[in-house]
């Protein structure tokens, strides 16, 4: 049962990874591509990592619990750093004078 739940979660995460990677190639300018990259950081990582954490808890032992905890720590730290990095890059783009793309 747990295997199926984690499988669905990981598949959902991979879907967001796919969407994000297509967006990074197909979207028209710097800022919108960064937005697509942000999707990978947040939704893709959250879903796939929580799937892996649940999979690690398939047999409940101390070691498995610790590895699940470490995976959750990864998610927490990427949630803090990913948006900050995106913010810093967008800030640098604005400061350097890059105009957002507009439909003609």
């Amino acid at each position, binding site marked *: 049962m747990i295997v199926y739940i984690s499988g669905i979660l990981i598949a959902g995460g991979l879907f967001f990874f796919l969407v994000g990677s297509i967006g990074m190639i197909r979207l028209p300018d710097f800022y919108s591509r960064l937005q697509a990259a942000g999707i990978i950081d947040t939704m893709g990582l959250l879903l796939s990592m929580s799937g892996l954490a649940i999979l690690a808890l398939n047999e409940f032992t101390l070691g498995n619990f610790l590895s699940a905890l470490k995976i959750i720590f990864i998610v927490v*730290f990427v949630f*803090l*750093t990913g948006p*900050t990095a995106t*913010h*810093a890059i967008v*800030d640098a783009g604005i*400061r350097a004078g890059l105009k957002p793309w507009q439909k003609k």
Partner: protein
Amino acid sequence: MKTLGQITVLFCGGLLLFFTSDFPDFGDANSPASLHLSPYFIENTLKDTAVPNVVTAILADYRGYDTMFETTVILTAGLACFLLLRIPKREVKSRYYLHEPTGVTLRFEGDKYPQKSDVFKRIDSNWVPYDLIINFTCRLLIHFIQIFALYVVAHGHYSPGGGFQGGVVLGASVILFAISGNLRAAIKRFGEKTAALFSAAGVFIYAGTGALCMMIGEHFLNYNFLSPLLGTDRIMARSHGIFIVEIGVAVTVMAVMIWIYYNLSSAGKQDEGL
């Protein structure tokens, strides 16, 4: 001079290429490494050194000399960066000061600049305003990064990790501080002299551990004989000896990372920079 350098480089490269042909093929089952070395390490590491991680034991114990000179190479890299880039005399043509009440930036030339003023704040020519989000996140994370670095150094006996990796993470935390704030604030906390001293101190810890073994009357870097000093049996003494040596490596790597960053990011001036 340039031709001489090129000839030396080509000669050494040619020698290396020439003697590569004597090496056993990649994955050769009859090479000495796969015949008797690897099985010995896999079977005897735990018995010899009480370290479960074979890689750490080989790196810091069986091949201690190799790692000692690797650490020396890192120190040399830091020194080379320092000698090439550092501008010995600080020539300040102009300084930029932000007048905080009005938000006006002024440029001062020569020796006339406000010293220790409450309203004037010294800024770089490529200064960016204080960003709350970036500063807060970086300040929040630096502690965790440093604790994780210590964990990586101390846990090298049981899991992937060790002195080099932990030292790099530790250095990266200070570099993150310099990037998120400014270079001068970082230099105020971890100065250039500290970096130079620490990078040499790490090599000293490593070589000093070896010399201590020699002074007791045994071979260089043979940690077995540290057991009376550490108060453990001879096998655990090897494990502890590896740990001491890893600390030395971590100190050197951390200091050299920071030192190279200071020199590279400010083009050797260490005054204004990223």
